[in-house]
């Protein structure tokens, strides 16, 4: 019989006392394991997201951390929005031209060009009326815009430093009608899934469990397609072909309201273990067209000056939501005459209304979603732009250099091409390096809290360990007699001491094992809450992240041998528990060592 078996029999003999001691130890270890794994998994997930496929976020000036939490983790209240043109500053000339053609400014310029062409063709260029007409339309700002017109076909000012840029719009949520579960809605481009990668190191891309990516303008659903994350699909039982409606604003506040627009789900993402799993990704073109998402422009006199019917063959005049357009401004009197003579154009609204005047026969029923036209660029705003800087950056300077440049107002200057600006538009932008922001967050707030939690749970472990001493100590009277018997049978002092230590170690290890299982069970139980708060999935088999062995005390001397080998920090609990057990078992062990056999046998 070895000492462990003798010790185990002793533990068994004190069944209830031993069980209580083990449970007490298990509770302490459970807390430590839960804190370690949940913190570890969240920590890893947060830090992993830093290599998410972008290294700069551009958004409205303000808190860099809030912008990061918004854009990377979909947490916190949304920040202000920035003009859509800031996104175009990161695009190539082709994209810019295609996008800017859908602008009020571009169409206004087109009108002047067309007027000039008409005058030229009529040969009345020398006529004073023609001069007056052109002069009336071509204000200084127009002249400037015309000069700039060539520039819109060129690459954006940040294009050469950009590898990928994807815009994002936040602020809406999807609330499941029956369960009440709320998920963030993100308006974005299809390039979110095609260009961005999940992990920069592995270049792992998004994968679809079902369906496909949404497309900007689908023949079936127009601009109203969406893709959902794995957790949304699972929790809400949603799948391909289902339709969802977004809620505007914070769903918990009274001011929120349900958008009338339906989106059709065309894709379900594979689970990524990241906050993306809990998001409904809406096609940004459709997102802009939802009520309250278009920004009213200051210079709506121009809206009247532009005959979009001529610019777009298939587009009829449409209603203008009076809420979207601000009353006239004194500054815009120049365009008053034009407004009086020209019907209002369609700007991001349904193609309807005046079609009856033009077509005598009744039209066959059409899907109204397919009748929508995109929102003009000037009325668009995005919450943030995710940018992966150019790969031609051997020294990795761009993620720090570009935010500094943007901070100096570089992007604001790109707005000069058009005089039409949304009312109360937030023009000041900032660029942040999400890695730095998250690192700062962790170093400043999360890490100290984690250490505090760990310290508290470690104290629980110490208290539990003391319960081992108390448990063993309370039985010392009876034990002294048993020890004396063993000594009389020939056991040496060292042997009885080692039996006591083994008993302490067995109690600690049994408690530790039970606590470890309970801790992971607790993780599985807390999984929905952690997932709700952080979007990170934590399960029974989620382990605390690895610690590099060569960075641990003592082992640092063997760095060359250990290399980058790492172990889960949970594994460290084993030597710590054994050490603790030895420490607390020393007292009863020494007592056993000192037992006076003659006296104790007589008891």
């Amino acid at each position: 019989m070895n000492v462990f078996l003798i010790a185990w029999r002793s533990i068994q003999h004190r069944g209830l006392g031993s069980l209580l001691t083990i449970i007490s130890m298990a509770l302490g270890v459970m807390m430590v394991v839960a804190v370690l794994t949940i913190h570890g998994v969240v920590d890893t997930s947060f830090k992993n997201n830093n290599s998410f496929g972008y290294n700069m976020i551009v958004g409205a000036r303000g808190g860099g951390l809030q912008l990061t939490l918004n854009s990377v983790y979909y947490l916190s209240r949304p920040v202000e929005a920035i003009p859509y043109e800031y996104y175009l500053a990161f695009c190539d000339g082709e994209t810019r031209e295609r996008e800017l053609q859908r602008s009020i400014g571009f169409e206004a310029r087109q009108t002047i060009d067309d007027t000039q062409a008409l005058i030229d063709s009529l040969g009345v260029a020398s006529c004073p009326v023609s001069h007056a007409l052109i002069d009336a339309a071509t204000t200084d700002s127009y002249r400037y815009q015309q000069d700039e017109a060539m520039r819109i076909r060129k690459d954006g000012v940040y294009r050469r430093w950009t590898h990928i840029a994807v815009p994002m719009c936040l602020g809406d949520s999807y609330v499941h009608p029956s369960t009440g579960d709320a998920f963030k809605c993100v308006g974005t481009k299809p390039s979110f899934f095609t260009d961005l990668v999940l992990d920069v190191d592995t270049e792992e891309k998004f994968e679809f469990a079902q369906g496909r990516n949404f497309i900007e303008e689908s023949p079936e659903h127009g601009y109203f397609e969406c893709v959902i994350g794995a957790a949304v699909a699972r929790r809400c039982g949603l799948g391909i072909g289902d339709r969802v409606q977004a809620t505007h604003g914070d769903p918990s506040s009274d001011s929120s309201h349900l958008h009338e627009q339906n989106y059709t789900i065309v894709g379900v993402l594979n689970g990524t273990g990241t906050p993306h799993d809990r998001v409904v990704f809406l096609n940004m073109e459709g997102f802009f067209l939802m009520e309250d998402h278009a920004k009213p422009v200051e210079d709506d006199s121009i809206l009247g000056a532009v005959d979009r019917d001529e610019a777009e063959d298939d587009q009829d005049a449409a209603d203008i939501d009076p809420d979207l357009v601000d009353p006239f401004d004194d500054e815009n009197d120049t365009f008053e005459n034009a407004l009086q003579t020209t019907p209002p154009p369609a700007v991001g609204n349904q193609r309807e209304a005046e079609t009856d005047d033009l077509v005598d026969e009744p039209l066959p029923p059409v899907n109204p979603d397919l009748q929508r036209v995109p929102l003009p660029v000037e009325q668009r705003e995005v919450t943030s732009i995710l940018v992966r800087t150019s790969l031609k950056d051997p020294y990795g300077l761009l993620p720090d250099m570009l935010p500094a440049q943007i901070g100096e107002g570089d992007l604001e200057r790109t707005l000069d091409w058009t005089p039409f600006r949304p009312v109360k538009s937030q023009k000041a932008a900032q660029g942040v390096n999400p890695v730095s922001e998250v690192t700062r967050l962790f170093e400043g707030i999360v890490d100290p809290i984690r250490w505090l939690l760990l310290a508290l749970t470690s104290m629980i472990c110490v208290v539990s360990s003391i319960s081992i001493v108390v448990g063993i100590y309370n039985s010392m009277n009876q034990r002294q007699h048993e020890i004396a018997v063993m000594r009389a049978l020939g056991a040496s002092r060292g042997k009885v001491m080692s039996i006591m230590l083994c008993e302490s170690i067995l109690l600690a290890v049994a408690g530790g094992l039970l606590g470890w299982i309970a801790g992971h069970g607790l993780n599985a139980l807390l999984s929905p809450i952690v997932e709700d708060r952080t979007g990170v999935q934590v399960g029974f088999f989620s382990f605390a992240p690895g610690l590099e062995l060569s960075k641990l005390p003592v082992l640092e001397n063997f760095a060359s041998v250990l290399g980058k080998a790492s172990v889960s920090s949970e594994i460290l609990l084993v030597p710590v528990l054994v050490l603790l057990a030895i420490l607390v078992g020393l007292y009863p062990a020494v007592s056993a060592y000192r037992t006076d056999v003659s006296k104790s046998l007589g008891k």
Partner: protein
Amino acid sequence: MLKLENIKKSFVQPDGTSVPILDIPDFQVNAGEQVVLLGPSGCGKTTMLHTIAGITNPDSGKVFVDSVELTRYSEAARDRIRADKMGYIFQTFNLLPGFSALENVLLGMTFARKKLLPKRAKTLLEKIGLGHRLNNKPNQLSVGEQQRVAIARSLANQPKLLLADEPTANVDPRNQQHIVELIAKSCREENIALLMVTHAMEVANQFDRIVRLDELNRVVADARASAGTET
């Protein structure tokens, strides 16, 4: 097999005074001999056994067991010698409560530098009629059965010398006889020298030699003599 030479042992009381317990000029037990040590309570029977077993060291004198001078050795060495060469039967059996009958016997082997022999442990228990109680814990055994397990345990390491400290004191008269016979028979079979302490005359009469400790131990003899003189 056992030889004591000028053994003296005294205890120090809390007030610092030294109280002599043993003063044995010469005592011997031969190999295979069965000796009963008779004496009233307080005459130093248990202390003498503890001294022979090496549990306590005498203040002076020598103890020889199987020609090994026990008193020369350190406590750890004496523990080993005790485990290897001696068996011990206690008055209160002292079976470990968490262990089964078989494990209690095996425990006796554990501390000796011998191979653990579960087969021998089983055989011993079967020989004393407890083959059907191998896995029973002490609290599931009768008093007589417990003492029989204790006997089996003391014989587990095939000792040269068996020390028995009033082994029948806590058992009923019917079992007393059975226990005594069992001890005597077992020692005879394995040629083990036996030194049994008892104060029961009917038990003592069954053995080869009876030694009265109150006569052997000068401390008690002198005290009695001086008491007699006084009276």
